């Protein structure tokens, strides 16, 4: 599979940053995220099990990882649309990369896109909880 994967994580992240920073208006940025949420296939109800829930989000967010060949593929869902969009963006970013690549990668898009500021996290930051979960999956699949 690695040959299919054309862009590195850093490159893909830059694209994500460019996409989000294109918008001058918060409204447009949110519209973009909401659209991402609406376009996301989500997970079938049967797959939305409690063990996939990301702790620390105010809405329920599920994140699932599967290994396809050498790389991980992430799928996600949420009962709220904005988290669903964000989770989808993050799932897309990390999908198609090996656990090693993921573990070696230090994401900066949260700060660079102002997402941290705009997504008013609670005490347990939902966004960072998702990112942490990604790392945990990568670790588990690497050692597995």
């Amino acid at each position, binding site marked *: 599979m690695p040959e299919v994967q054309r862009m590195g994580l850093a490159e893909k992240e830059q694209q994500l940053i460019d996409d989000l920073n294109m918008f001058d208006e*918060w409204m447009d940025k949110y519209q973009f995220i*909401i659209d991402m949420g609406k376009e996301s296939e989500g997970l079938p109800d049967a797959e939305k099990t409690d063990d996939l829930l990301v702790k620390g989000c*105010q*809405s329920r967010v599920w994140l699932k990882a599967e290994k396809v060949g050498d790389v991980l593929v992430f799928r996600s869902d949420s009962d*709220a649309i*904005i988290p669903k969009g964000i989770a989808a963006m993050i799932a897309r970013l990390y999908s198609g990369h090996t656990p090693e690549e993921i573990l070696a990668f230090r994401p900066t898009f949260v700060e660079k896109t102002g997402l941290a500021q*705009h*997504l*008013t996290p609670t005490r347990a930051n939902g966004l960072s909880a998702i990112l942490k979960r990604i790392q945990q999956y990568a670790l588990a699949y690497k050692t597995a």
Partner: protein
Amino acid sequence: MSYCVDISPLDKRVECWRSHFPQLRRKVHGRPLVYLDNAATSLKPRDVIEAVQQYYLRDNANVHRANHALGHASTTVYEDARKAVAQLIGAAATQEIIFTGGTTDSINALATALSKSYLQRGDVVLLSELEHHSNIVPWLELSQRMGIQLVYLPIAEDDDRVVKALEEHIERHRPRLLAVTHASNLTGRVLPIERMAEVARQYEVPMMVDGAQGVVHHRIDVAKLGLDFYAFSSHKLYGPMGIGVLYIRKKWHDVLPPFRFGGGMIDEVDYQSVSYAQAPYKYEAGTPHVAGAAGLLAAVRFLESIHWEEGLAYEQQLLRVAVDTLRKVDGIRLLGHEGGQYDPIVSVYAPKVHHYDLAVLMDQMGVAVRAGHHCVQPYLKKLGLKGTVRISLAFYNTEEEVEYCADALKRSIQILTG
């Protein structure tokens, strides 16, 4: 001291009230702050902020047995605060006012002390069905640990039915304690606690009231009502954080043991024995939050200075505007506000939209509301809901803010469903 009292018409008076709350001049996300999360915590008037600041700049010292001028000044402000609170809620004696860390702390302290002195295995504690977690979980812990039983009183929109249900529940369950909220932080519903207290007295059931919301919107008189316990937080009553009150009626002072142990609450300590001081001191171990008391004192004085009653009446007027305006927003429903008495709190939900998404977008428009379960999970589950968006008002809010909020809600729903 009096603030804003000679000003009319009303909107100018509201303007004047607003001028005392510095946070109202804040912008968020580049927009003027519309703060409608007052039930979570109120904004603080300048007098309160300055009282805390002045305390630290000038009188800061420990209170217990301080034989110096700063200690004297600290003790004076601390005991003045106790007096002011006693007066505010109509306590018969100053020593009935115990300072705690907040409502949650007050209720926990009470539950613990009652569990050691009064409640026994099998005893029934009667709560209402719309209690805040802080008035459920302390009793749940007792039920798990020592086998007391929790029974929940249903709360109809009609006060008569509530009172009738109370009588029935008391007859049926013979509770050893009635512990109910003064007003719901989720729906704003005000319980008929005067009439409930009458029933409780008649059946000789001691009564505790969670006044976290109630004390903010009512002139209460605990002595006249004959309440045994009343709990509230300073931070929701325009005072500082980290301090709250537990009113303990005098007749309980000999029954109820201390709930925290240490410095300042003892009469004499040996290595293997201890005797306790009199109330209120026996209930206040450790260095108290004197700066908090100084701020709470300033809050009470501020409320008196603006003729608080007028603020309370205005809140009810604002509530009617809010209910009317919100009812007109397509796609949402309101919890309650059909009949009974309500404090200025309105919870809404949109069947097709997640409350979290709504709050996030409204925040972008400068509107601070709260979304979630509001620590009232059991009642929400009963209604079949996961959460609501809660709009909670204070006397410094305006009709324009309420309308702007309704617009923001409308727009958010459009964005999310469009």
